[in-house]
C-alpha cells in the first residue's frame, strides 16, 4: 500500500510540471531590498560619492524602464534624459512579470557596475531559485526581457565618458597658489574624480548649468569674508568642544558624515570605517518615505529613479565647480595658519572644498522628494543605524537638507559659503528636475 502511494505521489509530482503556474507576487519591499543589497556592496567595495550616485541612477532607471514598458501607469522619465534611446520592446509581452524583469534589469546593471560581483550574484541567484520554482515560464521570459533592457541601458551608460575618465591624468598637487586644494590628513589621498564634470549629465544640459556664485575671494587678511569664514570654522569647533559629544551639532555632524571611507592609523595598524555616501543616505530617506506612504512597487521605483537622477546630476554639477575653484580645505589652512594640531570632527574628504557636495545633493534630493511626497513630511531617519549612529527625526525633507548642509560646518570640513551656495545650487537643480520630469506626487496625503 505504501509503495503504491509513493508511486502515485511520484506521478503527481511529475504532473506538477504541467499544472497552472503560480503568479509570482512581488511587493515594494522586494525593490527596497535590492537597493539595500546594492548599497551594502558599494559600501564594501568603497565607491566614492560621485561614482556611487551614478550606480544608483542607472540601476533605478533600468528598473523604471521595464516597469514603464508594461502597463504604463507612470509618467515616463526617460525621454528627458540626455542621449537616451527608447528601450527595445519585448518579443512578446505575454508572460512577462514586469516587476521581476525590473529587478533583473536593476541587478544586472548593479552587477556590471559594482566590483564584488559574487556578493550580488549570490543574492540574485537565491531570488532566481525562488521565482523559478514558483513559475518557471514567467520567470524565464521576464528574466530574458530584464536582461535585454539591462543591455540597452549598459550600452547607453557606456557612452557617458565614465570609462574614459578612469584613465585621465591624476590631479596634480604641485602648486604655489596658497588657495589651491592640498591633500588632507590622515591619508593625504589624491583628489578623487577630478574629471567627473566630463561625465554626461543625466538631465542637465551641461555640468556647469547650475554653476554656483563664486566663493568669497581667498584671502588671509583678517577682515575679509573668506578669512572670517575660515575663522568661523575654527571657532565653531571650539564651541563644540565645550558643548561636547552629546551636543546636537556634533550628533548631526556625525549623522550626516556619509564618508564611505574614513581611515584610521595606529602605528602599523590601519583600519577603515566605512559608511554610505550622501547619495546612499538620500536613497535611504526615499525608502523611508516610500514605505511610510505605502507606495506600491511601481511608484517606489518611480520615486527612487527621480531622486537618484537628481543626486547623480547633483554630483556632476558640484564636482564641476569643485575642480574649477579648487579651493583649499579649512583643515589645511587652520593647520598652516592657526593651529598646527587642529583636527575637524569629521575626517576631511579627499577633494576640493567648494561647494559642499552634501549641500548640493541634499538640496536637490529634498526638492525632488518634497514634490513626490509633499512638504512637511515628518519621518524618523534610521538610515545610519546600521553604521552605528542613532536615528534622527525630521519635520520635512527640506529641514533635513538644511541640517545636512550646516552639519558640514559643525564637522569642520566646509566654510559657510560652500554650504549656503551649495544648497541653493542643489535646490535649483532639484527644481529643474521636477519641472523637466514633470514629476507628479506619488503619495496622497
Amino acid at each position: 500500500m505504501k509503495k503504491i502511494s509513493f508511486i502515485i505521489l511520484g506521478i503527481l509530482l511529475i504532473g506538477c510540471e504541467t499544472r497552472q503556474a503560480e503568479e509570482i507576487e512581488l511587493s515594494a519591499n522586494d525593490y527596497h531590498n535590492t537597493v539595500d543589497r546594492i548599497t551594502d556592496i558599494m559600501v564594501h567595495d568603497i565607491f566614492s560619492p560621485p561614482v556611487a550616485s551614478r550606480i544608483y541612477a542607472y540601476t533605478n532607471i533600468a528598473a523604471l524602464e521595464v516597469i514603464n514598458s508594461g502597463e504604463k501607469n507612470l509618467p515616463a522619465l526617460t525621454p528627458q534624459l540626455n542621449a537616451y534611446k527608447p528601450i527595445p520592446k519585448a518579443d512578446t509581452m505575454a508572460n512577462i512579470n514586469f516587476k521581476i524583469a525590473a529587478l533583473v534589469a536593476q541587478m544586472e546593471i548593479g552587477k556590471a557596475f559594482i566590483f564584488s560581483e559574487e556578493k550580488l550574484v549570490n543574492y540574485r541567484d537565491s531570488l532566481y531559485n525562488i521565482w523559478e520554482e514558483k513559475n518557471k515560464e514567467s520567470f524565464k521570459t521576464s528574466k530574458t526581457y530584464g536582461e535585454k533592457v539591462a543591455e540597452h541601458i549598459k550600452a547607453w551608460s557606456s557612452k557617458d565618458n565614465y570609462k574614459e575618465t578612469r584613465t585621465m591624468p591624476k590631479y596634480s598637487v604641485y602648486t604655489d597658489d596658497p588657495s589651491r586644494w592640498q591633500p588632507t590628513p590622515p591619508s593625504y589621498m589624491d583628489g578623487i574624480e577630478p574629471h567627473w564634470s566630463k561625465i554626461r549629465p543625466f538631465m542637465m544640459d551641461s555640468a556647469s548649468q547650475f554653476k554656483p556664485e563664486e566663493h568669497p575671494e581667498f584671502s588671509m587678511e583678517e577682515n575679509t569674508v573668506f578669512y572670517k569664514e575660515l575663522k568661523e570654522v575654527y571657532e565653531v569647533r571650539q564651541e563644540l568642544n565645550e558643548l561636547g559629544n552629546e551636543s546636537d551639532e556634533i550628533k548631526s555632524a556625525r549623522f550626516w558624515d556619509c564618508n564611505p571611507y574614513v581611515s584610521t592609523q595606529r602605528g602599523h595598524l590601519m583600519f577603515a570605517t566605512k559608511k554610505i555616501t550622501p547619495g546612499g543616505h538620500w536613497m535611504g530617506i526615499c525608502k523611508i518615505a516610500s514605505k511610510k506612504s505605502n507606495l506600491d512597487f511601481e511608484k517606489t521605483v518611480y520615486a527612487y529613479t527621480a531622486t537618484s537622477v537628481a543626486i547623480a546630476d547633483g554630483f556632476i554639477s558640484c564636482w564641476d565647480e569643485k575642480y574649477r575653484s579648487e579651493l583649499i580645505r579649512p583643515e589645511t589652512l587652520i593647520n598652516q595658519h592657526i593651529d598646527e594640531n587642529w583636527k575637524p570632527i569629521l575626517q576631511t574628504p579627499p577633494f576640493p572644498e567648494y561647494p559642499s557636495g552634501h549641500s548640493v545633493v541634499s538640496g536637490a534630493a529634498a526638492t525632488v522628494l518634497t514634490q513626490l511626497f509633499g512638504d512637511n513630511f515628518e519621518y524618523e531617519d534610521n538610515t545610519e543605524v546600521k553604521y552605528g549612529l542613532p536615528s534622527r527625526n525630521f519635520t520635512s525633507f527640506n529641514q533635513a537638507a538644511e541640517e545636512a548642509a550646516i552639519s558640514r560646518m559643525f564637522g569642520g570640513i566646509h566654510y559657510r559659503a560652500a554650504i549656503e551656495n551649495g544648497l541653493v545650487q542643489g535646490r535649483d537643480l532639484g527644481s529643474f528636475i521636477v519641472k523637466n520630469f514633470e514629476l507628479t506626487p506619488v503619495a496622497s496625503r
Partner: protein
Amino acid sequence: MKVRLVIYFSLIFTFFSCEKEEKQPPLFQVLEPGETGISFSNDLTETKALNILDYLYFYNGGGVAVGDINNDRLPDIYFTGNQVKNKLYLNNGNMQFEDITETANVSGNSDWNTGVTMADVNGDGLLDIYVCAVVGVNGLRGKNELFINNGDNTFTEAAENFGLDFQNYSSSAAFFDYDNDGDLDMYLLNHAVHTVNTYGPANIRKKRHEESGDKLLRNDDGKFTDVSEEAGIYGGPNSYGLGVATADFNNDGYTDIYVSNDFHEDDYYYINNGDDTFSEKSKEKFGHQSRFSMGSDVADINQDGYMDILSLDMLPEDEKILKASVGDDPLDLNNMKIEKLGYHHQYTRNMMHLNQGGKYFQEIGLLSNLAATDWSWSALFADYDLDGRQDVFISTGIPKRPNDLDYIKYVSNEQISRKMNNSRLVDQKALEMMPGGFVPNYIFKGSDSLNFENKSKNWISQDSIISTGTAYADLNNNGRLDIITNNLNTPAAIYENQGQDGNFLQLSFEYSDTNFFGIGTKAITFQNGKMQYKQLFPAHGFQSSSQMRLHFGFINKTIDSLYIIWPDNTIQKEFKVKTNQSLKITTENNRDTFNYAQLFPRNETWFEKIESLPGIDYVHQENRFNDFDRQKLIPYKISNRGPAVLVADLNGDGKDDIFFGHSKFQDSELYYQKEDTFEKDSLTEVLKNNKTEEAAVLAEDFDNNGKQDLLIASGGGEFFSGNKALQDMIFYNKNAFEVQNLPIKPENTSVAVTADFNKNGYLDIFLGNGAISNDFGAIKDSYLLQNNEGEFQPVENKVFKELGMVTDAVWSDFNDDGQQDLIVVGEWMPPKFFQNKNGFFQDISDKILPKNLNGLWQAVIPFDINKDGKTDYLLGNWGLNTKFKASEKNPLKMFYADFDENGHTETILAYKKDGEYYPINGLDELVGQLSYLRKKFPAYHKFAGKNIEKIFGKKPLENAKVFEVNSLASGYLLNKNGKFIFKQFEAELQVAPITEFLEFDFNNDGNQEVLAGGNYFGLTPYHGRFDAFPGAIITSNGQIKSGGETGLNFTQKEVRAMNLVNFRGQNYLMVNFNDKAPSFYKINSQKR
C-alpha cells in the same frame, strides 16, 4: 606502488634542482629546549587593556644579552620577556644551561620588558645587566632596571643609585664612552607610542619629550647625568627609536651613533665632534634611509676599514605577501613629507649603507641582495662560516600583519572599527582575521663582491617562528659563533654552529677600571694584504647585546699582523698571530698613540671642489611635472633629463663660453668668458624660448662661414609627439642669429651628434629621439640629416626609422676603414652599430655584437680600456642596485598595448621571480590606469601572487608589443678583432645608472681616463632614488677609482652633463645636475 612512484619522481626532481648546489649539512642546528635546558618562551597574552590596538609595539618581542657573568669563559644568556618574567641561564658547558633566575634575583619587576644589554657598569670586572621597560602605556608599571653583579651568581637591582631608573618608553640601551674620558656612558633608545593622524614637521624632534625622546647619559663617577640637550641629541615626540648602533664611523677616534627610527622619522646619524657634542648628519651623509627602520648592525663588509651599516625594514620577499601588503607611499605623499615637512628620503626596504671613507654612505641594499627580508627585527653581522667575510643573520616575523590591504580595506571595517569607536574592546576574533606573518629567519653569506648570497634554505632550518631580539656568542668555545634568538610564543632558539671549515681568532680584552672589558676597542687583522676591522660594541641587532669579544674568521691559519687600538686611541701590535685560539689581551705599557690618518690615508685629490667660476650664477630648476599623473604605469619619468649644456668658444675669441639649457618655462642662459670672469649675455630674442626644454646643444659651423652656429634640439617628456615645442632648430650665426627649423617631425630629441659622414666638407647631424609623452612605448623615428652646403635634408634609410628610445649616440670609426660610423644606444634596445659604407649606413650590430644586449642604456663613449690600440666602447646602463631584475634567461619585460581598449596605450612591466612573471606594480597602481582590474580582483589576496597571464589574460599579452631588457649592468664592449664582447663593470660602477662619460687625461700622466657620472631620481617611491654613485674614474688599463678617492662626490645628485671649462689657462670640471646648481672642480693636473 603509487607511493614509490612519487618517491622516485621527487628524487629525480631533487637531483635536478640540486644540480649546482652541493649537498651540505646545514651550518646551524637548532637545539631543542630539552637538549639545552633553555625553555624560555616570550609568550604574549592579548588582554583588553593591552593589545596591538592600544600599544603599537605590542608585537616587537624581547631581547637577548649574552655575556660571561661568572668569568668561567662560558657565555651565559639573559632573555627578556614582554609580559613573562625575564630569565638568566648559566652556561655549564657542552651546551648545557641552568636557569638561575630566581637565585640570581634578576627576573625583573616591570610589567613590560624590552631591550637588554650587558656591560660592566661599575667597573668591578663583572658583567652587569641593564633591562629596559615600557612604563606608562595603558597602566604598564615598572622602570628600567640595572642588575649589579655581586660576583657570586647573584645580582642586586640598583638602577636608582646610578640614575638609570627611567620610567620611559624604552627600546634598548647601549653603553660606550662618548666623551673619551675612560668610563662608560649610556645611550637610551626610547620610542614614541602615539599614533597621530598628522605627521608633524620634522623639526619637532628638537622639542624634548621625556618618555619617548632618546637620552644620552654621561657617567659622572657612577652617577649618570642626562646631557642629551647639550650634546645635540634629539629627543622629540616623533622619535620611534627601534635600533641603536655605536661605532667610530669616520675613524677619528671618537664613537659615533646610528639610530634607526620607525615610521616617518628619519634615522639619525650622529657624528661625534670630539668635544662632547654630536652633529646629526643623516641628510648630508645618506642619500636615503629605511622607512620603517627597526634593528640595525654595523660591520666593515667590504674590508676597506670603514664601518658599514645595515638598517632593517619590512619589505616582503614573497609575491603573495608583497602584493597584499601596504607598499611605499604614493609619490605625492612621499614628496610632501620631504618638501613640506622636512623629512629625509625614506623607502620601505632594508638599507645597506656602504661607508665611503667616513665621508658619505652609498646605499646598496638592492645590489647586495639584502633589501627584502620581510618583517625584520635584528641583524647580526659575523663570519659564521669562517671564510674571512662578513655574513649576516636576520630575524623576522610578526604574529599579525596589520598592513594587510584586505584587512585594512575590507575586513577591519566589519570586524573591529565599530567596537573600537564604541567600547574600545578588541575582539579576539577580529585580531584573528589579520593574517599572520610567520616568516623563517634569513641568513646571507658574504662575498668578495658587495653581493650577499641568500643561504636561508641551506644554513638554517626553515621554521616559521617569530624571532625578535638576537645575539651571537661562541657558547661552547669551539671558535664558531652560535646564534641565540628570543622568539614570540615559542621557546628561544639556540642555533649551534656546526661548521667544519675555516679558522678563527677570538679576542677579549681587559682594559681599565672604569671600562674593564674595553668597550670601544678596535682590532684590525691583516692576512695576505686583506684587512679585517672590528670594533667592540656588544649592544647591536635589536634590543640585544652579543658576546663581549671580537670574533674573526680566516681562510689561512696565520695572521700576518694584528693591531689593537684601545679606547684611548693607543695601539699595540702583534705579528704572526696563530688562529684557532681565543686570546685575552691586556694593555701593554708605553703604548703609542694611534695615527688614524696613517692607516686610513686621506685620498689623493685629483679634483678640488671650488665654489663656482667667477660670474656664473646658474641654477637648473626642473619644473614640477609629474609624468606619472599622465601615464601611471610607465617605468620612469622622461621629463627630467635636462639640462643640456654646451661649452664652446661661441664668439671666436679663443675662450670657452657656456650655454646652459633650462627646463620648460625658463629661458636658456648664455655666458661669455671675459678676461677674468664670465658674463651673462642678455639673450637675443631669437634664442629666447621658454616653452621648450633643450635636450642637446651643439656649436658648429654648419654653413662654413667661419662662425659657430648653434644647434638646439628640444625634448622633454611633457610634449606630445609633433608638438611645436619639440622642434629642433639651427641658429645660424650671421650678423645676428637666424633661425631655421630642421626639416623633421618634432619629437622628444635626446641626442644630437655631428660628423661629415659623406666627406663633402659640411657637417651632418644625427638626431636621436627618445620616448614620447603620453604614449610611452611608441617608437619614433630618429634622423640622419645630410648637410648640402648649409641646407639639411633627411637621409632616407630604414635603419633610422623607429630606431628605439634613443638616449645617446656617437660617431666613431669602429671598423677602422677611415669612415665615420655611428653608434646609437637607448632604453629597451641593444646598442646599435651602423657601418658607414661610402655614405650608406647599414646596421651590422648582429654581426659584431653579442646577442641579448637589450638594456636601459644611457650613455656610450669610445675608449681603449685595455691599451691594445683598439677602440672599445664604454656603456652606461641602469645598474644593478635596483628592483628591476634582468638577465639573458629572464629578461625584464614591458608589454605595450591599449589593454583597456580606451584609445590610449599602457605599459605593464613584469619581472621574473621563482619561474613566473609578475607585474611590478601593485593592484592599486594598476587600477589607477586599468580600472577594469578592480572588478576582476575585488580583493587583494585574489591578486597577490598571480602571474601576469592570470592578471591580464594570455591574449592581451600576446597581442601586446613586448620590450625586453636582458642586461642592466653597465660595462664595456671590448674590441676583439672587429667583433665585440660585453664585459660588466665591477660592483662599484653598478650602484646607480651611469648617464654621462667624459674623456680626458685628468691626472696628466699621459694616459686618457674616462670620468663616469650618473644617478637618477625620476622614479616612484617603489624604486626610491638612485643616488649612490659618487662618480668614478676609469683608467686606460681598466682600473676603477671611486669618486671619493679622487675628490668627487656626486651622490644625491643627478649628473646630466660633464664638461671641461678652460678658464684663464686652468682646466676645470663642470658637472651639471638636474634641479641644482652645477658643481665646479679644479683639476689638479700636476704629474703624479
